[in-house]
């Protein structure tokens, strides 16, 4: 027996996708031209599938800070923060993030994925129960597994279902509810205020992953909890630097006075190398820009309204209300793969999202916006989507 036999079915499916054209799961960007354009397969391509929501990956101040940090502190770090020492910058970023989030304390992690592992497996343990939204990101699922807690999954964005499940759960266990602010595949937001009410009713704890909502939602950009005016009921905030902050890394923040014990109790914080000086420095610069430049938020929202309205006008079904993500529903995997390839030929890069990576078997073209898109680029993209409609009609009648 081959040790890879367990993957035979999914390898077969992948082979089928390859027959249709370019591999959507291994796209090679030959050169980044700006925050919104790249050379892909020899073609100048508009990027409509990155998580660079505020468009800060080429911010000159952030680049300078990053280069200077690499020159001053080196390319790598000494190792683990607990075993091999912190850099001043790690701690400064933690203080700055805590101030921005209006939280007592913040911890920085090496990636956003690890932030969820560290926060979930740090906060919850084998004697606790986790209630997680069914549409949660893989890092939340993996954090739950790592925690050893009993994990109960509730219906996506359904506070009544959560309420029923909490009511059935025995008393005397610590209960942690985990949801996201903005769901990155469908682009829908969580009813956090309603979840907060359920949490209070049952004396549970609430963790919100604002990975995709930080910098985009809320009057000051703190996320969906700020937008819904329920931050006081959120016990733990998780986030990443890889989206609005245009770097690599993640964080967790809380007001709990004992929160910092996770520095010596949470394995994904303890047993990995600290984030690189270059990444920390650019995250700090982007955080400052994000906090001080509300125009960035206005720009991405304008672009979102423009793209969503244009797609709907062309007859596409978009999964959620206008926001930084526009997920176009297609009838099946073959159509989605064909449409994705056609768009790439037309010079538009989006994300192909298919089961099991999507809820309810949905086949989607996930488009995401950036504050750095010019309105004219959105119009250009919509023109190419119009040509895609034509191709899809031909495909349907063929």
């Amino acid at each position, binding site marked *: 027996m081959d040790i890879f036999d367990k993957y035979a079915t999914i390898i077969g499916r992948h082979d089928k996708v390859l027959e249709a054209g370019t591999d959507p799961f291994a796209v090679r960007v030959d050169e980044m031209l700006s925050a919104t354009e790249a050379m892909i397969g020899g073609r100048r391509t508009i990027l409509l599938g990155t998580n660079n929501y505020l468009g800060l990956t080429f911010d000159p101040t952030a680049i300078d800070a990053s280069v200077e940090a690499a020159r001053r502190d080196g390319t790598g770090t000494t190792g683990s923060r607990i075993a091999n020492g912190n850099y001043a910058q790690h701690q400064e970023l933690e203080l700055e993030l805590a101030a921005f989030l209006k939280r007592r304390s913040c911890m920085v992690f090496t990636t956003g994925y690890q932030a969820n592992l560290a926060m979930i497996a740090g906060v919850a343990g084998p004697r606790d129960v986790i209630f997680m939204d069914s549409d949660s990101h893989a890092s939340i699922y993996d954090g739950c*597994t790592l925690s050893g807690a009993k994990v109960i*999954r509730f219906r996506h964005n359904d506070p009544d279902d959560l309420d029923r499940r909490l009511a*059935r759960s025995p008393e005397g266990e610590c209960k942690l509810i985990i949801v996201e602010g903005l769901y990155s595949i469908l682009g829908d937001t969580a009813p956090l205020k309603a979840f907060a009410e359920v949490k209070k009713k049952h004396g549970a704890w609430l963790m919100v992953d604002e990975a995709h909502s930080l910098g985009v939602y809320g009057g000051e950009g703190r996320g969906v909890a700020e937008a819904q005016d329920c931050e006081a009921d959120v016990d733990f905030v998780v986030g990443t630097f890889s989206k609005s902050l245009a770097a690599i890394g993640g964080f967790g923040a809380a007001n709990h006075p004992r929160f910092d014990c996770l520095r010596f109790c949470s394995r994904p914080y303890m047993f990995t190398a600290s984030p690189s000086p270059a990444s920390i420095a650019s995250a700090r610069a982007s955080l400052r820009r994000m906090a001080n430049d509300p125009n960035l938020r206005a720009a991405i929202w304008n672009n979102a309204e423009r793209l969503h309205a244009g797609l709907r006008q062309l007859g596409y079904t978009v999964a959620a209300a206008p926001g930084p993500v526009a997920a176009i529903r297609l009838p099946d995997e073959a159509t989605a793969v064909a449409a994705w390839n056609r768009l790439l030929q037309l010079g538009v890069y989006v994300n192909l999202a298919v089961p099991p990576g999507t809820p309810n078997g949905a086949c989607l073209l996930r488009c995401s916006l950036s504050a750095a898109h010019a309105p004219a680029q959105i119009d250009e993209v919509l023109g190419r989507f119009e040509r895609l409609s034509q191709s899809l009609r031909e495909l349907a009648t063929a």
Partner: protein
Amino acid sequence: MVDVTSDKDVAGSDEVFKEVCGLVTRFAPEGMALTPDTELAAQLNIDSVAAMDLVMEIEDHYNIDIPINEIADLRTLGDLAKLVRRHVKG
């Protein structure tokens, strides 16, 4: 958690097994007979996410919660019925 009543013969005839089969029929190719040995992934094409969604329907039906930690190593319909029976009994 040993369950003495859930050997295969019992699993094939009891109420829980029948009800679980009712919820699974839509995954079965036409004409396939559902038995306790029917494999969820290989024969019914129920992947890990579909299995969690199916368990949610079962949870609603019986008004119970089945932690997802217990779903990971389900292989057959018989395994599923056994799991459900354990939670229904409380």
